[in-house]
Structures are given as structure tokens and as C-alpha cells.
């Protein structure tokens, strides 16, 4: 098991599979809150679902209403389990806290590469750690 330090944005713990993109994501208009699928046609993950996965992205973008979309995904059971960013921005950070989704940021770029390849990851938003389990 490898452990990486990170900064806590939203508290809580979650373990699961990574879904990764090197492109920032807008939740308003970019993600379908009914299915959890990415619908932004210009996004590399278009058509893929972020539901019950650990979302690994550089950061967020777009409208501030995106925070409410994250909350709605949580209500619809389509939300990601946790969110890891290089640099958190207010829209996703606020949405993650509103929805009670663990979120961390400030990982080193090389850790981003390791996480992108990992199959089983735990985000510990209580202690500021990311654990990678090797099977």
C-alpha cells in the first residue's frame, strides 16, 4: 500500500475505482445529474459515468450553479464517491461539502500519474491522505 499526503477540502472517507481525466470539468451542463454520465461533447470522458467512482481531475470550471448539481447527484445516487483535484476551486469544493462527498487536493503531479493508473484507492478526507492498494 502506498500513502500520499494531500490537503482536505471536504471531510469523510471513501474507497473505490478511479475515473481520471486531465481536463477540468464543469458540472452544470457537463454532467447529467440523473445518470452520472459526462455529457460535455468536448470532454474526453464524454459518455462515461462518474457515479460511485473516485473522480480524479485537475480542477473545475464553469457556472457556480455546478455546486448545486453535485448536490443533486448525491440526492439521485449518481454522485462520485470522492473527488481528488490538483487544485480545488470554489464550485466543486462547495458542491462536495454540500453533498458530503470527501474531497482532497494539492497532490503532486507525479502522484496524479500514479493515481490515474491505480485500481483501488481510498480518499481519507479526515486525515488528509490518499491510499493506493496494490492487489
Amino acid at each position, binding site marked *: 500500500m502506498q500513502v500520499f499526503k494531500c490537503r482536505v477540502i471536504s471531510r469523510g472517507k471513501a474507497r473505490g475505482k478511479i475515473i481520471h481525466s486531465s481536463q477540468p470539468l464543469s458540472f452544470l451542463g457537463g454532467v447529467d445529474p440523473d445518470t452520472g454520465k459526462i455529457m460535455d461533447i468536448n470532454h474526453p470522458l464524454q459518455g462515461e459515468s462518474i457515479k460511485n467512482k473516485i473522480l480524479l481531475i485537475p480542477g473545475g470550471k464553469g457556472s457556480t450553479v455546478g455546486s448545486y448539481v453535485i448536490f443533486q447527484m448525491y440526492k439521485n445516487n449518481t454522485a462520485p464517491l470522492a473527488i481528488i483535484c490538483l487544485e480545488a476551486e470554489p464550485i466543486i*469544493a462547495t458542491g462536495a461539502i454540500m453533498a458530503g462527498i470527501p474531497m482532497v487536493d494539492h497532490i503532486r503531479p507525479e502522484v496524479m500519474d500514479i493515481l490515474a493508473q491505480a485500481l483501488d484507492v481510498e480518499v481519507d478526507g479526515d486525515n488528509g491522505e490518499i491510499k493506493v492498494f496494490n492487489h
Partner: protein
Amino acid sequence: MHLTREEEKMYQGEYGETIKKSMEILVALGDIYKAEKLVNITSAQVSGVSYKTIGDAGLEYLEDLARDPQAQTRVASTLNPAGVDLEKWEELGFSREFTTHQQRIVEAYGNMDVMTTCTCTPYLIGNVPLKGSHIAWSESSAVAYANSILGAMTNREGGPGALAAAICGKTACYGYHLPENRKSDLVVELECELQGTDYGALGYLVGQIVKEGKPYFKLKNRPLNDNLKGLGAALASSGAVALYHIERITPEYKDALPAEAKDIIFVDRNKLDGVKEKLSTTTKKPDLVCLGCPHASLEEIRNVAETLQGKKLKNDLWLCTSINMKTAADRMGYTKIIEQSGGRLVFDTCMVVAPIEELNYQVIGVDSAKAANYVPSMCGLEVVFDEFENLIDLE
């Protein structure tokens, strides 16, 4: 970020789940923007009200929050405009379905003790912070007004962040809360006098150029309060300006000018006329004239009433304002004059956040550069930007 012992207790959940979550939002924002601490605020102004913008997600979030008896604002807090006139929605043609959702949102805010005056001009209705006070406001035009004209200190808060600040009575101390971040970074020098829609056109032009900058204006004539309302709204919508200074007019101008003015933008009549032309998407006569962006002052309502006195309108007219101004206008007889000419005084809402695209209008006439900027994208309608006297069509 440093938290006091009391703030730590709030953050750890000793005062319940809502205060804990609200503190988490403030701390996360503080961390993101590298704040060293929180500051106590004296006023909040909360956006994220129209059902058209926040939808079912926002409605559910707010209703969930309002169920917690701990979710109560600790400081004077007022609400941004809603998507409908909460009393005359049916006469104006808004659907029952939309209105029902909208009423639930406003009620949830009311239950949290956010004053549901539903206006973007809180500074006209008694939410008036003093110079140097820390506040958490979110409506972009009101943020520009509070920072620039009142000399209060606020960042451009998001809706949920401003609500969290209202509930905790605190906000993260960064950006415009720090005096060193309140100095201008460029000078805008006017080469002509301004009047009427010139102010909005100027704001639109400068906002596009400076983005998040802090312009320092040198004007040729003294503006009125209502002019500055329009200037700030335009600066904050074409750019993301949260603070500007005007030489010899605004409270902080003396300390605002950098030792060496880096960039100077000169603005003349030609440039302003060019902007005005670009803001209109058509030359057709508007079928709905929408005034009051930001919400009209009592004096603006009086001016419209004086123009319309004894005349009949051929096109529809909405003059958007707060319930407070509407009540005063009723007493002064302005409402009656406007209604007798065929116009309406609409309150709680405006042309930007209302679903006017559902009302069968094609061309909206506005005298606000902010409204001209947003109506085509948010409502998908054509827009004409001009002085109100040129937009109305009299019999």
C-alpha cells in the same frame, strides 16, 4: 487557516450539522484563496434564488437545510431577486408550475431568516453596510456597489458561500477584505461627459478590457447614485469587476491610485456609441420594455411615471424593483400613473432571472447594459439597448 477556539467548535460540529457544514464551506474557500483567518461580518446578501438558475437541485438543498432549526442567519441578510413577481405572477403570465417551485425556494430562505425582499439593490432598502465593514455579498452588481460606493469589504461570494457566511456570521479573510488588495491597477480617463445609458456602456466597455481589474475613473461630470448603480452592474457583468474608484467621488479614491499609473484607457464619445450599437441585437421595436436592472430606485420610478403621465403605451412595459420601492411608489401614486398608461411595476424579479422566454415576447428593450448583455444568452431573445424614452412606443 487559523481558527479561534469558538470557530473550531463550530467547525467540529458542536453546534449541529448545518453550522458544521457552513464552516466547512468557509474554511475550504479560505484554504483555496489562502486566507489566514475568518472575519466577522455585519451583513450578508444571498444569490441563487431563481428556480430558472438553481433548479430542483438548489430547491432540494435549501429545503433540506431549512429543516434544521440551527440554520438561522446571524447577521442582517437579504435575498437576491426570484424568478417571478411573487404576488402578480399569474397576471404577468408566469406558469403555476414554475411559480410553485419558486415559492418553495423563497420560503426555505425565509425559514432560515434571510429577509425575502428579493432585490439586487439591498443598499436601497436598508441593508447598508458602513465603510470598512466586512460583509459577504454575492450579487455581482451589489458587490461592486458595496465595495466601490459604500467602501464596505466583500469578495464576489457564490450563493452557497454567502449563505454559509450568513449562518456563521463570518467569512474567509482574503481578497477585498484586505486593504492592500483594494488599490486600482489602471486608469480610465473620460474625454466626454456622461449621461443616461452612457454609464452602462462605459461599464460594459471597461469590464471587457479589465476583466477582474480595479479601474480608477476620471470623469468629466459628477454622476448620480442611480448612474453608478448601472455603471457597476455593467462592469461586473462584462468583466468580473468587484471594486472601482472614481476620482473625487468614491470613498477610497485618495489611497487607490498606484504611485505610477501603469495603463491608461481613454474613452471618448465614439467608443461609447460603438458599444451601444453592439449591445443591441436588432433594430426592431421592442414588444416588451424592461427597466430596472439593477432594481429601480424610487426616483427612477418617478421619472418613468412623469414621462408616462396621461399617455398610453403601445408596447408592454415592466419596471422592475423591490417590494420596498413598490410600496413607496404605491403611496406616491407613481404605480397608478404607470398602470394607467399600460405599464407595470414588477417586483421581486427582473428580466435576467425571470423565464421571460416563456411569455411570447420576441424583442426586449432595455436601458441597462447588464440586461443587454444577459437577455440574449439567458433568455434567447433579441434585445435593444437605448434610453427608455426611445424604447417606449406611445399612442
